[in-house]
Structures are given as structure tokens and as C-alpha cells.
């Protein structure tokens, strides 16, 4: 995981990345009726991104993925929760789902659409965001990179000034430096 080591690997991954994501999209869309669904599709997309980070080096990922994956996860949760809450406006129970059949859609023929897909989309986004974030952060820390940039440290650190336990590890409070 020390950055690009093989030209062949890198080229291959660039192609595979799109293939995997096509499959993920397919899995997401067919989920309600055939094997697939948001969770599986999310894992597939996440592994494609991780593969990309293996090929290009994890340090290059912030340039490709220009936002914090946690935001993706939060958006996913929001989509799922709103899908659940929407029926409340119409006086229906929380998380009731609605379906409709469209006939004669160009290229696809008869299509079955429903709100479960939106819910699954939320699950998908959340799984992608979380899997990517955790693996990227851990990968960065093992490569001697800053695990979290300063802005993220502010975002995720607790406002506690003192460590929770007296037995906390060495922490001299100094800014750390990037090792490479």
C-alpha cells in the first residue's frame, strides 16, 4: 500500500474500477427482486474505491474523492430517514413504502419502481462512506501519513481538554509532522 508500484496494476485498476461500479449499480437497482441490494452494492463500490487507493496510493485519494466520505454516509442516513419519514406527511405510518409500475419505458420495457429503492440508496451511500473512511484513515496512519487533516481533527475530536483516563498514552500536545 505504498503508492503506485506497478504500471500494469494501475492501468488495470482504472478499468476494473468502472466495471465494479457498473456491477454495483446493477446490484443496487435489481435488489428488490433479485439478489443484490444496498448493502451489497455499497460494499462492492467501497471495495472498488479501496482498490483504487491501492493502485494510486492512499495519499492521492483526497484529490479524487474531494469530500469527506463521512459526509457521504451522513447523506445516506438522511436519505433513508427522509424516505421513512415522508409518508408521515400524508398521514401514513413511518416507513411505509409505495410502488408503481411503468410500462413501455424506452430501452427497459416494463419497470417496477418503488420507494424501497430510495431507502436502499441511503444504505448504499452509508456503507460506501463508512467503509472507505475507516480503511483510508487506518491506511494513512500505517503509512506514517497524517491520519486526519487538521480540519477533520477539529471535526471529530471531543471537546474534552483532558484525556478520559489518566492512563492515556503519550500525548505531549505538540503538532505532529508528516514523516515522509
Amino acid at each position, binding site marked *: 500500500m505504498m503508492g503506485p508500484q506497478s504500471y500494469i496494476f494501475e492501468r488495470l485498476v482504472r478499468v476494473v474500477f468502472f466495471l465494479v461500479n457498473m456491477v454495483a449499480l446493477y446490484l443496487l437497482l435489481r435488489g428488490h427482486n433479485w439478489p443484490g*441490494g444496498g448493502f451489497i452494492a455499497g460494499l462492492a463500490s467501497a471495495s472498488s474505491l479501496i482498490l483504487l487507493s491501492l493502485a494510486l496510493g492512499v495519499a492521492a485519494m483526497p484529490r479524487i474523492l474531494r469530500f469527506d466520505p463521512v459526509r457521504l454516509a451522513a447523506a445516506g442516513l438522511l436519505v433513508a430517514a427522509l424516505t421513512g419519514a415522508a409518508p408521515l406527511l400524508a398521514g401514513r405510518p413511518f416507513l411505509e413504502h409505495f410502488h408503481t409500475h411503468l410500462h413501455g419505458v424506452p430501452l427497459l420495457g416494463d419497470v417496477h419502481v418503488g420507494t*424501497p429503492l430510495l431507502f436502499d440508496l441511503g444504505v448504499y451511500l452509508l456503507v460506501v462512506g463508512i467503509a472507505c473512511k475507516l480503511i483510508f484513515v487506518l491506511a494513512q496512519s500505517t503509512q506514517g501519513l497524517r491520519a486526519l487533516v487538521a480540519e477533520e481533527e477539529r471535526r471529530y475530536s471531543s471537546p474534552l481538554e483532558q484525556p478520559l483516563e489518566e492512563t492515556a498514552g503519550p500525548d505531549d500536545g505538540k503538532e505532529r509532522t508528516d514523516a515522509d
Partner: protein
Amino acid sequence: MTLALFIALGLPLLLGPLLGPLGRVFGRRVGWVAFGAPVLATAALLWLAREVGLPGSRVIEFPWIPSLGINLSFLLDGLSLFFALVVSGMGVLVFWYANFYLDDHYEHHGRFYAYLTLFMAAMLGTVLANNLMLLFVFWELTGITSFLLIGFLHEEESSRVGARQALLITGFTGLLLLAGVLMVRQVGGSFDLSVLLREGLPVGEHRGWLTAAMLLMLLGAFGKSAQFPFHFWLPNAMAAPTPVSAYLHSATMVKLGVFLCARLFPLFNEYELWAPLLSWVAFGTMVLGAVLALQSHDLKAILAFSTVSQLGYLIGYYGLGPARGVEYDYLHILNHVFYKGGLFMIAGVVIHSTGIQDIRQLGGLWRRLPWLGAACAVAAATMAGVIGTTGFLSKEMMLKEIFEAMRPHGTLGAYAAGCVLVTSVVKVAFAARFFTNVFLGPEPPAVKEHFHAPPLALQLPAVLLATAAVVFGLAPMLLDPPLHALSVAGLHHPSDHLALWHGVTLELAVSTGVLLAGAGLYVWGQRTQWRWARISPALRFDAFFEAGVRMFSKFTKWLTRVLQADRPVSYLPLILVFTLVVVGGWTARALAMEWRVFDWLATATGENGDWLRAFAAALISLAVVGAVLLKQWTTQLISLSIAGFLTTFYFVLYRAPDLALTQILVEVVTLILVLVLLGRFPRSAERGEHTWRPPPLRRALNLSLAVGVGGLMTTLVLWMNARPAAGRIGDWFPAHTEALAEGTNTVNTILVDFRGFDTLGEITVLLIATLGALGLLMRYKRTPEEYRQGPLGPAGMGLHHPEEGKQ
């Protein structure tokens, strides 16, 4: 009716959160926006009181969780309307007062009024609630808003300590109340007060449960109303700004305990424990509070302890109340609101204009603040029970009732009478001290130096309250019609007409004696310059409480360190032994009782004999054995991965494509995750050069645990599979998935539709766990030394075994 209820309760609830942002725009003027809430609420409540048709009652209900019997149900009767009007009426005065009290020296006005408005809404909700669950929710909301208000000046240590104590005490006792409510629901069959009051509680075999429920609910009341042994939080809550003290900690919130006792009185007053428990605790608190008030020197502390004392009386009053009903509880409560609310506001004005809180450094303010001085004289006289004030009426009735109660209650009555007499004497003494030592006498130089005149509008609410105390004190017949109208069947017994003069009675003689004795006590105190007056920590209890909190925190830290050590080796055995003993023991017992299980096992293995599955299972076992026996971590990992992918194959054999897909992807992602983490390990460890062998005894334990848990799981799985199926839920979902969820993939319809709520919860937990993990990773910061050792750094993250170094 619904609209009026919404204006009284819903509007403040909605307005509260808005005031925070509004405060950023309007600054301190946001208080006038907030002022609208209590004014509207009072108007709406008065209209409701007219519409309900007192002394009848009305229930207004909206569904919330009907399947559990929990609804937004409100009971409008005399008791709830009386308390609601006290809350909103006092709210009008306090919001007015706060607008002048919180000047530009304070910050965050928006936040303050947001909390205060929410508090008022929570109070109204608590007293108006019909559903006990709703009552509990609002009850806790008052505790939370009180916490926020006490801690409003959070830069000060005393504020934080006071807020934390209040939250812990009222929060904890609130949970006891919840337990009591649930017990009442289990036995009584309903959360609704209207139903319980109408039908009464079942008698007979459930008496024990109901007594326990009563005890728990009364503990909730004691916590909220600062009764012994919880009496210390109220004085410490005085760190809040004075309007808060006047509102929450004298007039309204602390009276919730009194309110709860009044609500429960018709249900529980015939129980053997009711009278002794309430009387012993509450009358004891009454004396304790009065003595502590006499020994305090801080203006607000004097008032706080005297509030504790008066709350003790109000609660004890219900304890001794005869079964046919009590008579004068409203009078006592109203009297307390008049003088204590007034005195708090007076103390606030004094503190505001002089900056001094210690009564020993004050004096001679009469010339500077004549209006306030007059109000204080009246309020103090009301507290002391001088004739011509509501205090006199209240004390006359108090003595009369206590003397009446002495006959049926024997020792208890005598104890209560003694407590009331002692308290009355002490109360006269500190009431006299409060007025005399602040407003009369020579003016100390410190006062002269610091004094700046407060606006007249700030003094207005206190003057109004004092006026009310005198007007109703001189013309008690004005109080008769409203108090009669508000009386509630079951709780109240129709009372005689209030009158100023009852003739020369025993009560009058005692009352005069009390005044004289109190005056004597005050004179003696002045002569000794109150040098003896220092509160012993043994009486305050907060030192014990703080020590308890510290001990608890130490204990949990110790427990966490033991159970959540860095290495799984140190805590896993504990969990596994527990599993083996509990689950294993239960399984063994069940197996011993169900001998047929072995027949099922024989048939099951006979039917399911399938060489392909057996082959896959054998391969999985082989891979697992490899993972255990191999030395290098990378090979171990690959072996484990093989086991995982073979499990996928097994799923395919069982025709579960969704599971197989998930399993493959989870295996991939987990493998990458572990590989990434392996990068942290030192090379030597990766090659398996450091192998730490535990001592033989430990190895034996580990081995037996591993075999035991493995055997247990195998037994359980076999057993579950062998058991003849009876209406398995697994058959229901595939059968209904197309009809109900319009999808053919059962796994997916379960996830997004049938069990969609579970999924929503799970993904929420996932996000929370990720944020927690990021926070934890942040905690691990490497020192510069560690960075100098290269990109991988030293072996960190607790992977070194302590004994490794020694070898």
C-alpha cells in the same frame, strides 16, 4: 379547547427553540418576545378554566403510541389548572423581572429565554398531563431545563457543581418515578390518571406491588422537592441567576413533588405506609431546612433552605391528610408563592444593586429603596405569619389541622405538631433577620460604595406579590370562590369559609406565642452576632454526595480497565466462562429434560446427509485448523480468508445467493482492513519470531474454554436444526413477500420493508460507531520520537505483551 391548550402548552414549546437564534438578532430585547409566552398561556388557561365547567374535569387526547397506551392526553381539572395558573402567572412576573434583571452584563440572552420558555412549557405539560408516561416525559424535561438554567453561568465552578447535582438527583429520582409508573400500569391497567382516579387501584393480591410503586413514585417526588436525604441540591442550585431561583426553585419546579403527592393522594392515602413515610420524612426535612436557613448567611441560601422547609410542610400535609380529603392545601401553596417568590425577587434586586450576597455585610437599604423595603417587610411578615397577611391565615389553618391530626395519628401527630411549632419559631427568627439586617440599621461602607439604583420596574413584581399577600390576608373571602371552584373530588373536602378573625382560640394563643419566641430567638442571634451560625457539613450532605459521585466514577474506571483491557486475552475468558456457565448450563438442563432430542438428531443427520456439503464443511474445518496452527500472521490470515470464502460456497449450496454475495464482499473488505493493520506490526512479529507461550495452567484454561464454547455452539446449532419446526417465521416471509412488499427477493424485502425500522437503526449505529472510531483514532497521537523511528513507528497499539520484554 384544543386551540387554547395549544396556545398554553404548544406555543411555548415551539417558541423556545426559536428564541436562541432570535437572541443573536435582538440581543437582550429578545426577552420581550419571550414575555408573550406566559401572558398568552395565562390568558388561555383562564379561558380553559371557564370552559371546563369546574368543579368538573375534561380530558383532551391525541394519539401518540396508542398500541402501548401512551397518548398525548391532558387532564383539565381543578388541581391541574391551579398549578398551571400558578406556573403561568408566576411566569408573567418572572419574565418581566428577568427582562430588567439580565442587563447587558449578561450574555446569551436568547439561550436564557429559550431555556426559560421551554421550562415553562415543560412545567405546564407536567401538571396538565393525564397520561403518566407523558407526565414523566415532561417531568424529566423540567429537570433538564433546570440543569441548563442552573448551569447558565457555566464559567463558574459553583454553577457547574450545582447544575450537576440537580441533574443527578432529579434525574435519578425521576427514573424511580418511571419505575413506579410502569408498576402502576402493570397492576392498574392504565397510564391514564383519569381512568385510575375514576376506577381506583385494584385491591387484594397486588397490594405489595402497589406499595412498591407508591414508594418509588414518592421517592421521585422527594427528589424533585428536595426532601431529606436529597435536600442539599436546592441550595446549591442557587448558583443560577436570581430570576431562575425565584421561578424554578421556589415557586414552581420544586412544587412538582407536592403536585405529585396531591395527584397520588386519592389513590394511595389509605395505604399503611403513606402517612408515616410522608410525615416522618417531610416534617423532619421541615425542621432541618428551617435550622439550616437560620444558620445561613447568604441571602439566597437562607431562602433556599426555608423553601426546603416549606416544601416539607406541604408534602407532610398530604401525609397526615384525612381520608375524606384535605382542605387548605391551595392556601398554603399560594401563600408560599406570594412570599417566597417575592423574597427571591427582593434578594435579586439587592444583589443586583449592591453586588453583595452576604447578609452580614448588608444593612440600611430602606432609605435607598423604600418601595422594596416595604415589600420585603410584608413578605417577611407573611413568612413569619403576622396577622393581616396570607401567612397568618395559612398558619392558623396549619395549627388547627395539626392539632386535629394529633388525635387519630397518635405519636405521628405529636411529632408533626412538635416539628411545626419548632419550625414556626425558627421561621419567625430568620424572617425578622432577613428584613431587619438588610433594610434597617446603619449602612456599611461597602454598600455605600457599590450601590447603584435599580429600575423601578425591577422592583414591581415583588411589590405586586407583597400586595397580593396583604390584600388576600385582609380580605380572605376573596380567595374563597376560586379555591372552592378549583377543589377536586377525592382530594379535597369542602372547607369552611376563610375568615380573618376566628375569635380567641387555642391557635391564636399558640400563634402569638410562636411570634414572641421567634422574636426572642432573633434578638438572641443579634446579641451573639450569629457567630455560632455555621452549617455543619454533616447536615448538608453534599460532601457525602460528591464523595459518592467520585467513588462511583473511580469504580467505573476500575471496572472498565479490568473488563476493557487492551488485549482481548485478558477479558475474553471472562465473557466465555460466563457464556459457558449460563448458556451451557441452561442447555444442559434443557437437554436433560428433552430426551427426544437425540432421536431428532438421528433423523436430522440421516435426512440431511449430503456429500457435497460434508466436503465443503471439511474444507472449512481444515482451513480453520490451519489458521490456528500456522505460525506466521500472513499465512494465518490467508487461511482464515479461505475459511471465509468456503463459507460462501456453503451458502451457495443452501441456495442463499444474497448471503453468499454479502459474505464474499465482507471477506474482501475485512481482508484489506486486516492487511492494512498488519502494516503496523513489527516485522519480527509478522514472521512469527516472537511467540509468547502462556504458562501451562493458562494454556489448559484456554484450551478447555475453546473446546467448551465450540462444543456448546455445535450442540445449539444441531439442536435448533433438529427440532421439529412449528410455525417458523422463516416460512412466513417468503410466502408474503410479493403480496405485502411487492418484491421477490425476500432477504431484501425483509431488510427494507418488513424490518425497515431495524435497518434504519442499524445504519444509524454504524454511523455512530464510525464517528466513535474516528474519535478514538484521534486519541492515538505519536510522539516525535516515535515518528523518528520511521514511517511504521514502533510497535504500538498495545500489541507488545508486558512480559515480552523480560524474556
